């Protein structure tokens, strides 16, 4: 049993630094907004520092196995442990989270949303960070569930208190949807606990076990519970309707966190828990996951074309983009899952950036109605170009990050794992490829209507419309650099995730998951 006493304090520190910062901030009086902003920023920078150290110290030659592993008793009665660790699959997502949060706090420096109260807002954000990082490092189902749920409340309040006009409905919808999914997820976890011989929540053991000893029908049901639980979070069609509302109403920071990290909790759950623990059920469900994924791609894109509100459009685009991620996952191949993880990071950078822009547009124009905007390139040329650049990234332009999530996912669909119907997935491949046309359509159309042309008479002489401000530059530059960097050198992420993904799928072989076996061995031999 590995305890924290050994030289593996890093992950624990990473997870709880934000929470410690939040607790400290409770002591600072509410009126002292500046101190709160400083405290939050310093805390998140500290966390980022730890994450950078993690990136530096991580043993990349051994990316397939869990590192900084801690495994101690936590709730002995139910056998839940404080089990944490990081491998190549979770490392990029932890880094993404640690990167996004300081940017959010930098942005918050001048943009605390109505009705103010920086203290509460920032404390909630820090709790969110703990929840998100915790979810990515947890290696025990109970621990995972707790962190997964810790994320829920702060986001609920963020929307319900700092949201737009329709915040009540949106926040409630978000809360209930997620809770509904969580309930099913928890049941699945419990079922796994009771139905495996070991009677444990330890994810390593459950992964090793890979559903052995559980009747096929039961496996399918347990998987279905997780499917809905994680699927709501992703969100997958038809559980997605909370997303546009939540995004539209959420404050900019909330939208950024939601898009950049929160949605990934769902997809991460699929690749960390659902598939490795129940490979046989995954194989049976794969065509359905794939189907919902490609429906999401087309449906999300069509939804985008119908939008009149910029932020809502970006929200709908998430449905389409996460469709590509889910398609990659549904193939149950190393190519597909690598693409999915890349897609998660890329979507985090790109869509996070788009929501930042939407927030800044709202701040300047006091509206996000596409009809009323226009000519941003004239009045705020740099912002207009950034919007153009990020749109290009979002539509999957090769050379920028978005492409490496999209294309390999489409590629993987040509040749899914052996137990998964190939013909069906080739159909999905074509539909997904058509989705890229629609993506270009709605993004460029958005760009044309908001950035190109002459400014409308309404805003032509508005002194409020200024170009990118220094705080915005600081908050945005890392994202923009990341979009280019990972686009040019995709290996930076693929080489971290690949060993872990290959091993995760290999693990199914030992326990007799036929479909995945043939796919990976073919890949290994190529």
């Amino acid at each position, binding site marked *: 049993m590995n305890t924290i006493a050994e030289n593996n304090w890093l992950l624990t520190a990473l997870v709880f630094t934000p929470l410690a910062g939040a607790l400290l901030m409770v002591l600072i009086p509410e009126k002292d907004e500046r101190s709160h902003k400083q405290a939050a920023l310093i805390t998140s920078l500290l966390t980022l520092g730890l994450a950078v150290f993690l990136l530096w110290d991580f043993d990349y030659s051994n990316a397939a196995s869990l590192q900084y592993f801690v495994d101690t008793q936590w709730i002995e009665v139910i056998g839940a442990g404080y089990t944490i660790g990081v491998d190549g699959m979770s490392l990029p997502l932890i880094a993404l989270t640690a990167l996004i949060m300081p940017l959010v706090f930098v942005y918050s420096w001048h943009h605390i949303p109505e009705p103010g109260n920086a203290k509460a807002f920032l404390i909630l954000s820090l709790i969110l960070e703990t929840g998100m990082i915790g979810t990515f490092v947890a290696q025990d189902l109970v621990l995972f569930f707790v962190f997964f749920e810790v994320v829920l409340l702060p986001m609920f309040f963020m929307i319900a208190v700092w949201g737009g006009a329709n915040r009540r409905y949106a926040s409630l919808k978000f809360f209930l949807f997620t809770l509904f999914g969580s309930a099913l997820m928890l049941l699945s976890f419990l079922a796994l606990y009771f139905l495996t011989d070991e009677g444990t929540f330890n994810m390593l053991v459950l992964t090793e076990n890979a559903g052995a000893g559980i009747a096929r029908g039961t496996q399918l049901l347990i998987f279905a519970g997780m499917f809905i639980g994680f699927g709501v979070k992703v969100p997958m069609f038809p559980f997605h309707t909370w997303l546009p509302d939540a995004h539209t109403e959420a404050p900019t920071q909330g939208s950024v966190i939601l898009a950049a990290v929160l949605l990934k909790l769902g997809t991460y759950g699929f690749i960390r828990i659902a598939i490795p623990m129940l490979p046989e059920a995954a194989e049976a469900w794969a065509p359905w996951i794939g189907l919902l994924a490609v429906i999401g791609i087309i449906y999300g894109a069509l939804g985008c074309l119908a939008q009149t509100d910029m932020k809502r459009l970006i929200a709908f685009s998430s449905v389409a983009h996460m469709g590509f991620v889910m398609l990659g996952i549904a193939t149950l191949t190393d190519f597909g899952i690598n693409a999915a993880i890349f897609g998660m990071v890329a979507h985090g950078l790109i869509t996070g950036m788009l929501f930042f822009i939407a927030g800044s547009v709202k701040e300047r124009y006091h509206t996000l109605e596409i009809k009323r905007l226009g000519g941003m390139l004239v009045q705020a040329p740099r912002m207009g170009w950034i919007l153009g650049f990020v749109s290009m990234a979002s539509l999957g332009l090769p050379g920028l990050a978005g*492409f490496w999530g999209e294309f390999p996912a489409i*590629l993987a669909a040509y040749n899914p794992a052996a137990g998964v119907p190939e013909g069906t997935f080739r159909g999905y491949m074509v539909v997904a490829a058509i989705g890229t046309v629609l993506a270009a359509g709605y993004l460029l159309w958005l760009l044309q209507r908001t950035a190109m042309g002459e400014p409308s008479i309404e805003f032509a002489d508005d002194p409020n419309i200024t170009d990118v401000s220094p705080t915005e530059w600081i908050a945005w530059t890392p994202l923009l650099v990341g979009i280019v960097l990972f686009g040019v050198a995709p290996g930076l992420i693929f080489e971290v995730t690949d060993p872990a993904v290959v091993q995760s799928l290999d693990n199914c072989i030992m326990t007799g998951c036929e479909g995945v076996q043939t796919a990976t061995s073919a890949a290994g031999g190529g």
Partner: protein
Amino acid sequence: MPTVFATLAPSSVPTSSTVTQSANWFLENAWLVPLLPALSFVCILFFGKRLRYKGAELGIAAVALSLILAACAGVAWLDHRDNFVLHNTTDAGVEAVAGESYVAVQNSTQWLQSGGIEFSAGILVDGLSVMMLVMVSLVSLLVHVYSTDYVSDDKRYTHFFAFLSLFTAAMLFFVLSDNILQMIVGWELVGVCSFVLIGHWWEQKPNSDAALKAFLTNRVGDVGLLIGVITLFFAAGGGKTFDTIKINEAIVQGGVSHSALVVASLCLMAAVMSKSGQFILHTWLPDAMAGPTPVSALIHAATMVVAGVFMIARLYPVFFEGMQIGGSSINVMATIGAVTLVFGGLLAFVQNDIKKVLAYSTVSQLGYMVMALGVGAWTAAVFHLFTHAFFKANLFLGSGSVAHAVHSFDMKKDMGGLRKFMPKTYVTFIIGSLALAGLFPLAGFWSKDEILAGTGGWGLFGGTGGNGTYTFHLLMGMFGAALTAAYMTRCVYLTFHGTYRGGHGQHHEPHESGPRILVPLYILSGLAIVAGLANLPPGFQLVNNSWTERFGHFIEPVGSSYFPKIAHATPSWSLAVVASVVALFGAVAAFYYYFVKVDRLAKTTQQSLTELPEGLTESNALAGAGHKTLVNKYYLDHIYERGIVAATKGPLARAAYWVNQHMIDNAVNTTGETAVKMGRSMYDLVDQGVIDAFVDGSGRVSDATGEELRQINSGKVQNYAAILFAMAAVLAGAFIIIFAF
């Protein structure tokens, strides 16, 4: 340091039979050619505005250096092609591999890894890519110089040069790619540059519309590109490789399933149709003329639009096998090319905008190239790509020079008689037109003649050999030649002859352009004259044999392991003469109409006319209908814009959103409301009815407690949550129990 950063370290490429890693320095390091303009893009972007010439000098310097490097690589290649001997290292020592004379140079480094496989990025240098490097950097340099004058007053001057640099870099990157994944990257990057530069004047909606149309049409083709590449990735080269040479080799060796190649070649053909303006995906190209003229010359005539043709040439085994080119008389590619060359040529006739004439002419000439590849005339197609780049860039830049003087592109309204005002532009334009029309001995004659011979469809005096008997395509090619000569004659008359019709409200006459515009024109028209000599037909008796077929010898990878065994057509004097007569006939007919009849009428009526008042289109119903169809561009844009695009943006998108709001969301809301109702009734029935009754009966509890309870109970969130949670729990629990036991 993490090993991730080892990405940049070079890794070896397994050498196949006709590929080498070590060669002349300029060939090994050809990646510098695209790198320089890429660096200049970044530099111009960040501090171009602060420089003395606002960034243009950086772009020109970078592209000039690229041209020098490319030219050195070209010279090195000439030597390499003839003298390089591939050595094979065995245990016994180093021995020469016999019989291999065409050895490509490939160098690559690791790029990314997935599924345990490492993928590399690298350069593939052979005759084809070296030729493209020289051609692209040369035309790009000339366009850069030209632009310093042409867009000198533009408010986004620096930005314009930044994107010229980026485009040049992307195009050079594309032609050097050694794998098809990298080709996708280059392919899309040139598309983005095209988008940005077409929409350079985005203040006006027609320009941004044109930019969007170009990008979206290309995206439609890209669906084919993605699927085609994926199919090749899995089907060819022993599975799971993007390497161009390995894929080609596998196909040449016959180890790839034919049906996979059919799918791949058809899918890639869709991509070619959009990028290289083939009928029916060509409609974006004429609209792309909304961009500045230097952009039209560089991107939409000489370089980017030939990317599709280049891709076919690069992946020729895929198409040669997939389309079954050999021994046939018809196939999809050749037919698309043939239809495009005629339909495009017809459209060029009815344009009033000089750039649109040239745009449709480009469509038509691209049709020639695709048709040539479709009939197996690889060298002819690539040679035509080469010559066309010069004379078409010449014509576009010439039209820009004219527009610079008259501030319009409308031939009928604002031009006419310009030969008096701009004699130098006139001469270069005439040279370009003659070359385009394919008249002896200019560049276009030689390349067009090779294409016609390559069809193998010439039956007179014994045929020309070739890969099949593509008679239909030969006839289309000849008809196209007549059309080309005719529409260029019309264009020249309307622009330069007759009397000047423009100058409304202007106090100065049109004037000849300055040296930065004229010098590129001189160079290009010079090339339009001599470029054809690069590939004189074999057996051409007027020169020494060592002067014939130089282009084909150095460019075509004959005998290499990655090129199919194609047959080579023999040139035919009789075909050359007949084709020339046909082209001349087109020229003469148009000459008679414009230079004789229209001109005479213009002189008698003292007007500057552009056509006869009682033309065929008015007097003949059929001709009128045909004319109307042409003016409406075969109604394709109507179908696309009012049909497909409008339906997607309108009803389809609205329907999807309606489903979202009224069906899915309704279900969600109804569930929520039902839950609340259930909660209420439970509260009313159980809580108020039973418990309260009990409470009431047993005595009064304090008001405060009751109030608190009520608040908790009616707190909606908790209600919803608890009930939903409970419902889900019960439901799932029931299922598990049923199935588990």
